[in-house]
């Protein structure tokens, strides 16, 4: 196995035909052409690109003015690292306030009234897009964890001989896979959510679960059905002889499953499972409709305030691409590790 991977770079060195280079050139020409066409089209509608306005939606500096809350005279200014310590003495007593040195607005001996600005403190804050990105990651991870659990059990139930387990799993999988995720999100939020919230209110529990919970629940049950099919296929791909060998040694169905079938099935399940998680990340963009401010919803909000729709939607797509691409790279690495 290892020799195969080390040999690969050498096989790439072979001489390339002319059609290879023309093909490559055509590829880059196409990319460049499309980008140019888009740019020219935006000029036609007088769209002004303002990429410089985008970073502030990731991180921005917030300026906080530090004001005096007593009246008096500044008696002393002491250095305290990067800050200055201001001692104000007045009729009501004295007070020490710390202010960043570079934005100090007062000097020793100044008379201060209540509400006067002593200095300005700058702080980095996380912008809306970054918050949305984080929420998308959070929702995807939680839904993935629950989805794998649901899918693992449903997948095992799917191949069970017991009709209760098998029919339950088949019904679940078919219902989920046969209806749109958007509708499922609505059902979770507007039907199940309403029911659960009103019952909780009736029994006197004031804490109503936030929409995020219903969003995660809908994503997890959705992913679970697809994971179940992946798990089923993985289990069925293991040769029958493996089960027979395990059972002939006296292992129960469950023992054979846990010790023999599943460990082998997991290796085959991993690659399609990764594809499922990548879909999950993209599907989470639908959660905006139930007021979960994930990346897409956040982008929409930023577009409404900034009106820089073109840049922002490109950035939004790029962020999703970064997430999915990173994940698929990680899985490729894992796969290679497992095979070797």
């Amino acid at each position, binding site marked *: 196995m290892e020799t195969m991977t080390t040999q690969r770079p050498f096989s790439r060195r072979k001489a390339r035909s002319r059609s290879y280079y023309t093909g490559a050139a055509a590829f880059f020409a196409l990319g460049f052409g499309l980008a140019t066409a888009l740019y020219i089209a935006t000029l036609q509608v007088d769209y002004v690109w303002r990429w410089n306005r985008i970073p502030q939606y990731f991180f921005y500096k917030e300026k906080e003015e530090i004001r005096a809350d007593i009246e008096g005279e500044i008696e002393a200014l002491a250095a305290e690292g990067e800050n200055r310590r201001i001692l104000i003495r007045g009729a009501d007593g004295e007070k020490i306030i710390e202010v960043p040195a570079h934005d100090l607005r007062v000097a020793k001996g100044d008379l201060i009234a209540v509400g006067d600005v002593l200095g300005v403190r700058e702080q980095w804050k996380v912008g809306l897009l970054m918050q949305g990105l984080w929420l998308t990651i959070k929702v995807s991870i939680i839904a993935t964890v629950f989805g794998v659990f649901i899918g693992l059990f449903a997948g095992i139930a799917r191949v069970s001989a017991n009709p209760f387990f098998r029919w339950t799993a088949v019904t679940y999988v078919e219902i989920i896979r046969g209806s749109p995720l958007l509708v499922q999100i609505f059902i979770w939020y507007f039907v199940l959510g309403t029911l659960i919230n009103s019952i909780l209110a009736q029994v006197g529990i004031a804490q109503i679960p936030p929409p995020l919970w219903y969003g995660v629940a809908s994503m997890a049950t959705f992913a679970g059905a697809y994971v179940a099919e992946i798990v089923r296929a993985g289990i069925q791909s293991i040769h029958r002889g493996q089960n027979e*060998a395990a059972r002939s*040694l006296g*292992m129960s169905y469950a*023992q054979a499953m846990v010790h*023999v079938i599943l460990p082998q099935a997991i290796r085959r399940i991993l690659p399609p499972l990764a594809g499922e998680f990548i879909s999950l990340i993209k599907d989470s963009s639908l959660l905006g409709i139930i007021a979960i401010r994930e990346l897409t919803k956040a982008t929409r909000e930023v577009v409404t305030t900034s009106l820089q729709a073109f840049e922002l939607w490109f950035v939004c797509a790029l962020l999703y691409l970064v997430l999915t691409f990173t994940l698929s790279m990680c899985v490729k690495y894992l796969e290679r590790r497992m095979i070797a």
Partner: protein
Amino acid sequence: MIDVRNLYKTFWLPQEVKALVDVSVEIAAGEVVVVIGPSGSGKSTLLRCLNRLETADAGHIFIEGVDVLDARTDINKVRAEVGMVFQSFNLFPHKTVLDNITLAQRVVRKRSGSEARQKAETLLKKVGIQEKARAYPDQLSGGQQQRVAIARALAMDPKVMLFDEPTSALDPEMIGEVLDVMKNLAREGMTMVVVTHEMGFAREVADRVVFMDGGGIVEIGTPEHFFTRPTHDRTKLFLSQILK
């Protein structure tokens, strides 16, 4: 030890095949019974019915007085006492040789890790591949894999060993090493039921030979009787075909 009475089994898919038709046979403790016959004669099905890998449609199987076909019988307990060796070895590819042999000991027999390991090492020595304990099955030759499979079955301290064409998937030069292990086992007094095409093994080791054809037992006898003066024409025909 094993008592098979009027066993019937029909497969319906992909088409109707009467695999076993009124099969009755008794096997005593310590006996080595070799089952031979043309392919499709039902010999593998008979073997697989003995530990209920296939469920017979009608009839009875008693192993040490336990009714194998009774739904109330804990089949896992029966199987722990009945070792089975498969044509395609069926070793667990994700586990080392040692783990292959210790797994069922720990899970089914509830032995401690060190006890199971000791047992495994003793058995590996017995089948002559103790140096491969840390290897994975795909690093072994076919003959070595089959010997590990025998050790894996023996680790459960079975009362009977079933062999389902154990040498049919092997290269010719590896058949001998597997048959040697089986011969030693027979010499030690293990009760064995062996489905095989190795006539030499049948002649040398078997206490009795069972000849099957068309789902039924045609003839049972000692190897001496079977190979020198068989009674049935079908047996004579079969022997003339394979001993050409």
